[in-house]
């Protein structure tokens, strides 16, 4: 039951995830492992340091993982952010101007996910 409550709290898509990952045990296990994932920290640190390649990788990883686990709002926020941070051939981010606006959304969604998982 707690898995359902947690997903409802964060606005996640549990049904689809069940279809893909098959067992609740697996979903629960990796949701908890997500708490130890360092991508968010990587993203924050890299932005602070102005290392956009590393920031993109952090956002990209966050996007992939949140999608795998059906953390829909976090997936959507990190998706927008990673698109903004994606480097062109010259190594400059696609839309740096949007980052100050997108980053708080990612933080907010991330915090919600972490808090929700904590109740499982």
């Amino acid at each position, binding site marked *: 039951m707690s898995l359902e409550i947690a997903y409802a709290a964060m606005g996640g898509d549990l049904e689809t*995830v069940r*279809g*893909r*990952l*098959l067992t609740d045990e*697996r979903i629960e*296990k*990796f949701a908890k*492992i*997500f708490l*130890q*994932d*360092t991508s968010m920290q990587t993203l924050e640190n890299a932005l602070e340091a102005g290392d956009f390649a*590393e920031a*993109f*990788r952090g956002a*990209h*990883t966050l*996007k*992939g*993982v949140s*999608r*795998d686990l*059906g953390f829909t709002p976090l997936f959507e926020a990190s998706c927008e952010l990673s698109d903004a941070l994606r480097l062109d051939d010259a190594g400059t981010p696609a839309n740096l101007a949007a980052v100050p606006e997108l980053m708080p959304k990612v933080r907010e969604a991330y915090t919600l996910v972490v808090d929700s998982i904590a109740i499982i």
Partner: protein
Amino acid sequence: MLNRALLADMIGDSFRIIEAEDGKQAVAQLQKEGTGISLVLLDYVMPHMNGFDVLELMNKNGWIKDIPVIMVSAESDAAYVERAYELGVTDFINRPYDVNIVRRRVMNTLMLYQKQRTLMGMVADQVYEREKSNNLMVYILSHIVEFRNGESGMHVLNVQAMTEMILTHLVRLTDQYELTPEDISLISMASSLHDIGKIAIPEEILNKPGRFTDEEFEVMKTHSAVGADMLDDLELYKDEKLVRVARDICRWHHERYDGRGYPDGLSGDEIPISAQVVALADVYDALTSQRVYKPPFSHEEALRMIRDGECGSFNPLILQCLTEVAEELKSRLNRGVTGREINVDTLHVTDIAADAEASSRTLELLDYERMKYHFFASMSNEVQFEYTAEPSIIVLSDWGDRKLGLPEIVMDPYSDEAFLSVFGQANIDKLNKMLRATTPESPTVNMEMEVSVDGESRWLHLIAQALWSDENPPAYLGSIGKFIDIDDQQAQLRDLQFKAYHDPLTEVVNGAFARKVITERLGEDHGAERSDDRFVMLVCDLDLFKQANDNHGHQFGDKVLQHFADLLQESVRTTDVVARVGGDEFLVCMECPPDPRPLVARIHSSLEGEIDGFPLSVSMGVSTTDGGVRDYDELFRQADVALYHMKRTGRGGYVFYEDLTDEERGSLFEGGHTALSGIDSDEDDQ
């Protein structure tokens, strides 16, 4: 991290899963495990090297042919997918992961590759069998000709082997003749047919023991053209490459470079290179074989006759090849059954193995070699390594990483702090320079270097081989090699040498070593400006030593000997030789001033005294090089005779051999004993 863990979890535990954090580590693992890896799941977004960089490297190293790759990605951009397929990925898995899809794709790809390997193996085996049968047929055919000629089949096999050797060497020497390994193999096989025309020569001419008449020789000479005609007249297959090459060889293997051969009088490179080489092989083998009209000549004689032009003229390049493969030739030809097996089989096995589309047989062999390598690496006391230049990665053998305190895989060793702190920047730069200065022909490098392991300095001997690509000019790919810890070795050697040359009780050197060193020192002066250097030799014996043993026990006896040895060493310079040459007999040898007597007196007096109440009384016999004696044995004999005299006439003193009368010198031998046994019996009287 989570990404990889999730994939691993979905694939399940029936596979061994190796995780790599980034592109570089993935490459390092591929390099280490090779085809031990059945499948790679590759992400695109990674630090250091992205997924495409890894794929490009897998292409460059040929891994992509044997190791399937499934690309894992959240990207669905068409250009991106296209590029991945171009780089040889087998399939895609799109995010988000779906357990069933992941499992299906992984299993499908594995099965596809397994099937492909099995099929490739089957084809390779069949090709091999076919090749073998072909070779056999050609061999039997040519044997029929030889059989009629009253010769064994060795001639054909020798010509074949030699043709292959010379051609292989020729392409290394020059690119003037465009010959692929397949061409060489084909020409070697076709060479067996060079004499088939002889089937049309009447037997009484073919096997005539003496010289031919002019008419007979004209008939004999037709065999080359006849052989070619026989092949030209083939209904089927006459345009096959093998048949065309064999035809050229048949017709022109008696042409000569200067145009004086037959049947067409072609000269220089008008004669196909195949026929030129077979002509030489034919001549060489005829010379070194027995014929009805001649005995066999030796390898050396045959070479000489060919070089001197006694058998007609040949292309200088081919003659150069002959000279350069002469040693190999001597060892490979006329090896009876073994030689035959080599000729029929090996050529074509290597052809298959050399093929880039490795068969399952080759892959198994590679895996086997890898296993063997790892086993021996773990057994040996050496650190083995493989280094690739692009990307810069060094892989150390399992044992080696523990020995050097470095991880098994080091990325970018040229800028890795831990790596550099062990090996030192200067050593690494020097090694890199040496390796890059090698050539594909002589790629080996030897170097000794001082390294630092856990803060301790050690000496390593390094043997490495640079790996060069086949391109022209060759590119430096990396190196393989091993470090041998010579610190341990040298310490062991020093220890052994010490033991071999030292008396274990007193730790002065033993007689054998003293003899060696003194002989060297005496000899050194011969002819040198120091020829007026003089040496004095003292043979010292402890008086009443037997009493020390008898009355106080052997332990005390040992103590006396040790004390005496110490006294002796203290009384001379460290460069002088002090040795224990018998039970209680010691030898001292040193350079001395013109008058050695004060020196000897000083040494003698410094030895006298007592130890724990036991009186030390020493008898010494002295000899010098003054009389011109510069031979160890003679000096020792003289000192020993003097010592014996000293013991006979009262102990606790020294005598110079030169002071003895002839009678005294000779008296020693009256009793028929040696000096030493004389002393022993002397003490028994006490």
